[in-house]
Structures are given as structure tokens and as C-alpha cells.
């Protein structure tokens, strides 16, 4: 069974049609990169996958859950689908350790010792063990983003979503975040990311989808898509990002 299946998904914001009949599927352990100009609908599509935005038509199955908006069902889905945001969205009043422990304790009802052990484990995965007791505003942007990845990872999700996670970072800080994501991909995590990092998408992603005007304009294995763009729109987009 595929880890992600999107079929016939459409969405509009008022009179603006932002997604038109999207169909996708992704195998377990694979990485899908969504690329395209801003306003093409790629972030909206990603946010639909864990129910942050509502779809008007179609179906989404992700991490073994059919998307539904009943609060309890949505919470169960979200336990298995992590998301990392462009602006990190760490909780500023909690230390790094407590940021990571929050969901395991409240959602999975783990005792505090177990949650702490898990937090230390995932923090080591992203290479920030020594920051357990720091507050988010004491960290650099790149470090905050790695903590945000660790926070999602602590819930042991089936699928992880990444919404332009390096766009808010200075160029010299994007590297450390991309390396963290690459390691995650190598460990077999199923990942969907919206990104502007073309070389990253090209070298790490299995499948790349180019979105244009609310549609999936082209979708192909990463090598093929970048090497042989079939449409004029993708060709123009790729040359503009060089």
C-alpha cells in the first residue's frame, strides 16, 4: 500500500481556484518534492495533506489514514503525519526539550521519563543534544529548524511534510538543515517537501512534481524531470531558478 495517495483533489479560496484535480501517489520510504512558482498551489497542497487546509473535492490517504475533518480522526492522522514549517513555529515559552516532549506527553500520554528519553534521542539525531535546556530564541535559525524537525520526529510519524523549511534561513544556515533532511531520507522516512532548493530536490528526491496554476503540470522521477522537461512552463521555471 502506498504511504500517500491523493486523488481528484480540488480547492478554492473564494473565487480563486488554487488546486485543480490533483492526483498523486507515493511509496513508503520515498521522497516527493513539490516545486513551482509561488502561488502555484504547492504549499496549499502540502497543508491539505494534514488537514490544515480543507479540500473541496477528492480524497487523501496518508500514513494509513483517510483524511477526514472529524476532530478525533484528524488528531489520529496528525499523530502519524509530521509537519515542519517555514517559520519553525517552536513554542517560545518552552525549552527545546519541553518543545519536543509536549506532544508525546499530551497526545501519546507517555510518562515524562519516557518522553524525555525520546526527546534526547531525536535531538541527537539532528545533532543538537547539548541544546536540550536552551530556549528557542537562544538558537540560530538553522538550529531552531532542526529542533522543529526533531519535534515532529519524536512522534515517530509515518510521513513527514516540509513546507519551504529553508526559505527563512540565511544561505549559510540552509546546509545544516538540508543535511538533517538528507539523513532522514536515508533512514527510510517517507517525506513530502515543498522546496526552492532545486539541487537538493534533484539529488535526493525520488519523485518531483512541478506545479503550475493549481495543477500538477509535470511529474516524473527526479533525474528525468530535470534532465528532460517536457513542457515550456517547466523549462522556463527551471531556467529562472538557476
Amino acid at each position, binding site marked *: 500500500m502506498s504511504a500517500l495517495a491523493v486523488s481528484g483533489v480540488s480547492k478554492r479560496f473564494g473565487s480563486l481556484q488554487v488546486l485543480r484535480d490533483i492526483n498523486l501517489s507515493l511509496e513508503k520510504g520515498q521522497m516527493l518534492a513539490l516545486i513551482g512558482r509561488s502561488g502555484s498551489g504547492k504549499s496549499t497542497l502540502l497543508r491539505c495533506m494534514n488537514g*490544515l487546509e480543507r479540500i473541496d473535492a477528492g480524497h487523501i490517504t496518508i500514513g494509513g489514514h483517510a483524511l477526514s475533518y472529524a476532530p478525533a480522526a484528524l488528531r489520529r492522522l496528525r499523530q502519524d503525519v509530521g509537519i515542519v514549517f517555514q517559520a519553525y513555529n517552536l513554542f517560545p515559552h518552552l525549552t527545546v526539550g519541553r518543545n519536543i516532549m509536549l506532544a508525546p506527553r499530551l497526545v501519546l500520554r507517555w510518562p515524562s521519563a519516557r518522553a524525555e528519553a525520546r526527546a534526547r534521542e531525536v535531538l541527537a539525531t539532528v545533532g543538537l543534544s547539548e541544546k536540550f535546556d536552551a530556549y528557542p530564541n537562544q538558537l540560530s535559525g538553522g538550529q531552531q529548524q532542526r529542533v522543529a524537525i526533531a519535534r515532529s520526529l519524536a512522534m515517530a510519524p509515518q510521513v513527514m511534510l516540509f513546507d519551504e523549511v529553508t526559505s527563512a534561513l540565511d544561505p549559510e544556515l540552509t546546509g545544516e538543515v538540508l543535511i538533517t533532511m538528507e539523513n532522514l531520507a536515508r533512514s527510510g522516512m517517507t517525506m513530502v517537501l515543498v522546496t526552492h532548493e532545486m539541487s537538493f530536490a534533484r539529488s535526493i528526491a525520488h519523485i518531483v512534481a512541478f506545479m503550475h496554476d493549481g495543477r500538477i503540470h509535470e511529474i516524473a522521477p527526479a533525474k528525468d524531470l530535470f534532465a528532460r522537461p517536457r513542457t515550456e512552463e517547466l523549462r522556463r521555471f527551471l531556467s529562472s531558478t538557476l
Partner: protein
Amino acid sequence: MTYQFQFGAVFARAELLIDGFLLTLQLTVLTGLIGLILGLSCAVIRTYGPRPARMAVATYVEIFRNTPFLVQLFLIFFGIPEIGKTFGLRWLPSPYMAGLAALSVNIGAYATEIIRAGLQSVHRSQVEAAESLGLTRWQVIRYVILPPALRNVYPALSSEFILLMLGTSVVSVISVEELTGTANLIQSETYRTFETYALIWVIYFALALVLKGILDAIAARFIGRQKPPPAAAGAAHA
């Protein structure tokens, strides 16, 4: 004509004044706590509750913020027993109970508005991050929104608390014998009006300063530590 200041007669009633002072403190702390709980609940309902509940809270807040405390006090102390009688209820609140009730609902309305502003100051993306981790609505409010919200409005809440302390003096009008109430008694017995009020004026002033000191110390202890030390703040830009 020269006036001879005579504080002696007033100091002779020190015991009475101390009782009054303690009652002022008690009223302040009790109504502060009740008002805080009331304000917290109402602010959460006003922001996240169902529409009818939101409207009800808004009405409560507007009524109490747009009428004088003195009128509210008289309505509770004199007015409620009157309408109670027409429904066959014999309820006569003591001045103390009426004062406590009036102060609590009054400060509750102000606290609601302050805390509501705090809830709105927490960015929507914080809620999205918490919901994406599978937290329930209540958990999101309790663990993600409320702590930074309260932290943001702590200065406003603490100056409201000082105003509340000063405002307790008004319940002396229905003969509650807190600090101002005992002063009224003492000056009517000693005829040392100016000395009496000057003395409690100083006491209120000192109490306001002490309370502010305590509230600031609490802020430094529990809120200040979230601020990064200068070195770490620099690192964030590195």
C-alpha cells in the same frame, strides 16, 4: 488662623487602622484571585467559545467596563435584595459580601479584556504547529496559547491589580471597615480629619509600592528567565 497638626489621637487608634489595613489586603488578594479566574474563563470563552456564550461574555464585559463601580456596588448591595424580595427571596448581603462580589465581577470584566488581548497576541502559526502534533483544542489553549499569552499581558494585569487595591477603598461607602472605612470612623471620633486621611494616604502609597515590588519580583523570577542572556541573543544572529 493656624492649624495644629495632632497625629497623636489618630495613632491612638492604630489597632483599628491595622485591622482596616488587613481587611484591605484580604479584599485585594481575594478579589484579585477570583477576578483572575473569572477573567481567564471569560477570556477563553470570549475567544474560543460558541457564539451565544461569546455574546454573553461580551455583554458582561461591556456593561461592567462602561458603568461606575459605585453604581455596580449599590446595585448589588441595595438593588439585588430589592428584586430578591419581589421574587420572595430574603437575601441580605453583608456589606463585606456585597463589596467582595462587586469588586470581583468588576475586576473580572477588566481581566477578561486584558487576557483576551493576550490570547489574540499569540500567532496563528503556533496553533497550527500544535494542532499538527495532534493536540486537542483544549490542550492547544492550555499548553500552547495561555502561557505566552499570560506572559505578554502580565504587566497590564499587574497594574490592574494595583488599581484594584486602590479601588477597594470605595467599598467603605457601604460601611465595609477596610482601611478607608476605619479612617472614616476614626476621623468622626477624633475630629482629626486631615491627619487621618493623610495617614492612610501614605499607607496606600506605601502598599502600592510594596505590591508593585512584589509583582515585579514575580515577573523577574518567572518571566525574566525566558529572556535570553545577552551572549545567547547575539548567537541568534550569528
